[in-house]
């Protein structure tokens, strides 16, 4: 088996068995890449984690492409990213085709009427757990509140909030020092 085939299969395995997205994949990736296949050392893996967290993009894709890149250069990176994305593309495509045929079905509609408020709660819940990792306190609580208000009430694009927050942090740090 060529190394690229192996790379692709390893990442599509990771992509097809981790529910719940990006961060759920980290322990699985570490086990496959560092412990089992020894493509990277533990330190290299941690470095990649840092880079994936601080560059934009989908966390899981960033991780996969960076691991592939570190191991086999740019082709490795592309194969890793495609490997991890492939299963979800196929699954969602099948669901989309199926869903279009069934979404007007009265039972499907009833099920989704129950699910929709639940999803809103599932999106709201991580705000509180992320508040801890973002080190929110009484001094910086205005930042998320202002961003949410700008987006929700004024229709400001979230992109502007991200750009403003990043620049603001940089400038504030420069002034302080």
């Amino acid at each position, binding site marked *: 088996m060529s190394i690229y085939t192996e790379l692709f299969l390893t990442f599509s395995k990771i992509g097809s068995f981790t529910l719940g*997205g990006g961060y759920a994949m980290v322990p699985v990736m570490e086990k496959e890449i560092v412990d089992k296949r020894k493509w990277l050392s533990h330190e290299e893996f941690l470095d990649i984690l840092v880079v994936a967290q601080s560059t934009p993009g989908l*966390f899981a894709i960033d991780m996969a492409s960076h691991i592939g890149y570190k191991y086999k250069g740019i082709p490795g990176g592309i194969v890793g990213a495609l490997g991890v994305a492939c299963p979800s593309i196929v699954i969602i495509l099948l669901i989309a085709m199926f869903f279009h045929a069934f979404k007007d079905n009265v039972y499907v509609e009833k099920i989704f009427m129950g699910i929709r*408020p639940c999803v809103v709660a599932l999106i709201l819940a991580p705000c509180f757990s*992320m508040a801890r990792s973002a080190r929110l306190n009484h001094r910086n609580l205005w930042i*998320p509140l202002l961003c949410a208000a700008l987006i929700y009430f004024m229709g400001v694009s979230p992109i502007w909030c991200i750009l*403003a927050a990043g620049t603001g942090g940089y400038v504030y740090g420069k002034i302080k020092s």
Partner: protein
Amino acid sequence: MIFLQLFITFSKIGIFNFGGGYAMLSLIQDEVVNKHHWLTVAEFTDIVAISQSTPGPIGINAATYTGYTAVVNAGYPQWAAVLSAVMTSLSIMWLPFILMVSISKFLLRHKDSQWIKDIFGTLRPAIVGLILAAALMLMNTENFGSPSQTTFVFIVSVAIFLFAFFGTRLFKIHPIVMILLSGLAGLLIY
């Protein structure tokens, strides 16, 4: 030209996404629901539910689904929709990939620098605000029913919402279990 619009929109979503799947929801919602009207709020909420219950990153799931649905709704044949779904999923990936390859060495050299900490010191709180905005925008009559017109649906929805919120926060019930339970509740109650 819907294919070009999808490509540009999802490239933009990819490069401005910091902070994982939930943070990305407000970007996707702003572009896909509010600006381009490719999906309704209810359809968008359904994708989030589907993404939560299927493997893979939420951004890819949303991109694939939007790429397919937008093109079908615009009246193109199914094969074009499948192509568009794959293209849209790749659009979200390519810019971060190029950026990562070009700046990873630089970032690792500076990972402990103060200026990186300064940037993320305000960026992370802002991302919490992005997620909050996404949740607020989904709290509408399409997802909860209207208190005056469909009072019963509204009361059931609020109950499911509270149950799901406290269930995941306090009792650490898995999101997928939550989705299955509320789907079952919908089927039995309505």
